């Protein structure tokens, strides 16, 4: 789309590239998650030449259509205490928040993978059961999305497409989830060490139409 005439050349160029503004200097130099490096290297022309040709607008490693992949950290993780207050006899509950405001309205989600890692507070912890619900408010949790066994130290992955993030529609500005841990036989609790969302979207404006050779 042509950029407005009032824009400077750099801003106009960035808009053509699908970036409304130049990202400022990086707020925190957080490490690049391994999955993002893997996806990037898969797309690297040097490595792509070795294997099969890559399909445009397709994320092979995740097996879905898409041309934008975002690794979105839980925006509440840094402000949350490492040992949250717990109600008597129960493990703590967490609210995780994912800021999706940078996603353009034209983008359609094709994968929304929640990634969580819980760490044990003591060595004899065998694991827990984790339930994930949409966050409604502090007193009235929303509907439960999933309930899964959660061993300590293992990266848990759950697809939220069709539940917390609607398919074939614009993504919401934020996704808020309530996590609660149900202790196993040892009754020892754990702490939430990592929470992120891997969001794959397809922006049809960036997908080329098949070209016909003359």
């Amino acid at each position, binding site marked *: 789309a042509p950029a407005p005439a009032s824009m400077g050349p750099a801003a106009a160029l960035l808009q053509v590239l699908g970036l409304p503004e130049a*990202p*400022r200097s990086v707020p925190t130099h957080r490490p*690049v998650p391994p999955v993002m490096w893997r996806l990037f290297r898969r*797309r*690297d022309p040097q490595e792509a030449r070795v294997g099969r040709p890559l399909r445009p607008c397709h994320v092979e490693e995740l097996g879905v259509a898409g041309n934008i992949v*975002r*690794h979105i*950290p839980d925006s509440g993780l840094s402000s949350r205490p490492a040992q949250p207050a717990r109600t008597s006899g129960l493990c703590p509950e967490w609210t995780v928040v994912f800021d999706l405001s940078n996603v353009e309205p034209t983008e359609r989600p094709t994968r929304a993978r929640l990634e969580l890692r819980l760490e044990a507070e003591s060595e004899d912890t065998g694991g827990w059961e984790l339930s994930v619900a949409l966050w409604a408010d502090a007193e009235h949790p929303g509907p439960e999305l999933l309930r899964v066994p959660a061993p300590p130290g293992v990266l848990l992955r759950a697809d939220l497409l069709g539940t917390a993030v609607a398919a074939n529609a614009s993504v919401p500005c934020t996704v808020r989830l309530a996590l609660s841990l149900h202790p196993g036989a040892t009754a020892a609790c754990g702490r939430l060490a990592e929470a992120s969302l891997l969001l794959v979207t397809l922006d049809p404006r*960036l997908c080329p139409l098949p070209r016909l050779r003359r």
Partner: protein
Amino acid sequence: HTEPRVEVGPVGTCRTRRLHVSFREVGWHRWVIAPRGFLANFCQGTCALPETLRGPGGPPALNHAVLRALMHAAAPTPGAGSPCCVPERLSPISVLFFDNSDNVVLRHYEDMVVDECGCR
């Protein structure tokens, strides 16, 4: 980092020239994680006959370009010169970067690298 530009004399036949885009030089290195740059390349050269009519292996020239080159050779007209040397085949790149919300984003961009030039 481009090839040295030919300022005097014939530019040569239309073909792909090397152009390396460095994200540091354009000031994007603070938020672009990878790659640090890429070979974007560009097209430069004349599209006069017989170069406009490519042999086997090269991209086929547009009929319009051939006739325009013929017309230009036969009766040069000011303002309507020979065909233009432009990208014929391009390939994509992927860019890994931080956005303003500290998200790590991988974006796939089509048509970023000129692989082949032709006369149009």
